[in-house]
């Protein structure tokens, strides 16, 4: 059974088209990434799934049931992209307040989450308005996950988290998968999605560009490599397997590489290099890949 099934989802805000004919499914026990730049429609999709926004066309089902049902939300944990916590409540008070909505689902993961996310007892006693953005984000994660939901919907969950806590968050997510839970999270950072997801849907300007496994995505992705050579530029770079395009400006070469990077690295290793830049691929690189334009 699919955890989430979306068919022909369309949303218009007046004349503005936020989503157009988006369809995909999320399997049970999967970590599914929803990738796209700011304004692509990721948050709109999540809000429609949660019943906060009404679709103009199309359908959404969660565990085979109508997504509008409030009962289904017992099995969902949702972390909005931007949210407000009641500032005059303490961290502990807030966690317990939201638990009261699910009295039949005890907070079995609360202690584990508090430890993994490094939330100090002093943070729990302090009023929320005096907490840092990162700590508030952690509290949001605890609220979303403490009842061990079958489906986690997370909108940019690692925003404001330091790298160590991001790592802990990834471990928590992977642990959930081992317990047959489904995770659906949106992000505009490719590396974040690459690190944990098995599949990813790529959204741009409200339209689905692709739904791929991470492995296929890596194989298809065109990545940029910039090398400054000490001596003359080797003449055979453009013919190295994987190189789709090259641009030479003096001693500096930019190469576009798809798939296996080892052949070009072996070729470059045979020469003297002054500088070597192989940046993390950006979303635009992915879009260019799928629109068949490079650089």
């Amino acid at each position, binding site marked *: 059974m699919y955890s989430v099934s979306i068919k022909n989802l369309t949303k218009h805000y007046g004349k503005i088209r936020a989503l157009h004919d988006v369809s995909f499914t999320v399997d049970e026990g999967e970590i599914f990434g929803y990738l796209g730049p700011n304004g692509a429609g990721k948050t709109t999709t999540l809000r429609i799934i949660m019943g*906060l*926004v009404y679709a103009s066309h199309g359908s959404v089902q969660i565990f085979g049931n109508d997504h509008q049902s*409030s009962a289904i*939300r017992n099995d*969902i944990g949702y972390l909005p992209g*931007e*949210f*407000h916590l009641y500032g005059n409540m303490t961290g502990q008070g807030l966690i317990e307040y939201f638990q009261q*909505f*699910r009295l039949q689902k005890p907070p079995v993961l609360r202690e584990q989450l508090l430890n993994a996310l490094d939330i100090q007892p002093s943070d729990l006693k302090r009023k929320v308005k005096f907490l840092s953005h990162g700590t508030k984000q952690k509290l949001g994660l605890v609220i979303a996950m403490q009842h061990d939901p079958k489906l986690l919907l997370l909108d940019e969950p690692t925003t404001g988290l330091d790298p160590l806590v991001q790592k802990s968050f990834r471990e928590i997510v992977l642990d959930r998968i081992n317990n047959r839970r489904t995770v659906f999270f949106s992000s505009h950072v490719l590396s974040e999605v690459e690190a944990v997801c098995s599949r990813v849907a790529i959204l741009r300007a409200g339209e689905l560009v692709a739904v791929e496994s991470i492995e296929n995505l890596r194989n298809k992705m065109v990545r940029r490599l910039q090398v400054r050579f000490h001596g003359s530029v080797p003449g055979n770079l453009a013919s190295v397997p994987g190189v789709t395009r090259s641009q030479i400006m003096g001693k500096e070469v930019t190469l576009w590489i798809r798939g296996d990077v080892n052949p070009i690295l072996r070729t470059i290793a045979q020469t003297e290099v002054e500088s070597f830049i192989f940046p993390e691929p950006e979303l635009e690189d992915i879009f260019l890949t799928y629109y068949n334009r490079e650089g």
Partner: protein
Amino acid sequence: MNGALQNIPPFMRALIEQQFFGGLTQKGLLGFGWNHPIALAIGTAVALVFASRAVAGEIESGAMELILSQPITRLNYFTGHVLFALTSIALMSLIGVCGTLIGIQVYSLAPLEGAILFKVAFNFFLLHSTWYGITLLFSVFGREAGHVAFIGFLLALVSYFVQVIAQLWTKAAFLLPYTVHTYYSPQKIFVNGELKPISVIVLLGLIVVSIGIAGWRFRKRDIP
């Protein structure tokens, strides 16, 4: 005192007898306490704050998204807010009654019938519940509590002043039925013991219609 009233300009006498002091009697003065601008302002402010924060305020702050992602229906959320607000306004009315009783006791005034106290408290409750309902209607269409509260405040202010002016200026008297404050008459309740059925019908009708439409709209709108 009544002799003195005869010698003041007619419009001032109307102001004193109708709007403020109910004819300078003990009951009339007690009635004025329920129609004092400060008492009205406090009651209206409570109604406006509750209404503006119920939907627009929660959307503005971002809390609404987190709340409605919990397993509660929008109807439950809306009903909870409405019940809380109406209960609070009822408590305010009760506090007014307690204040009146304390004042009667402290100043050794003639006791009042329970029916009069009930009617005036009920009228006070209806008036501020009406402002709550009207402002709530704007709240479910809005996204910012401040804007919504300001609209509610303006409407209440206009209603109050139009009612005062229409009572003093005969050419504006036709406006009286269209102001909410026309249906709030504590002085008449204290002096004559009457709460006109039309006042109850109009105010209750406004409350039911405004809250009903607000509830329908809230269930249909996108968040935010």
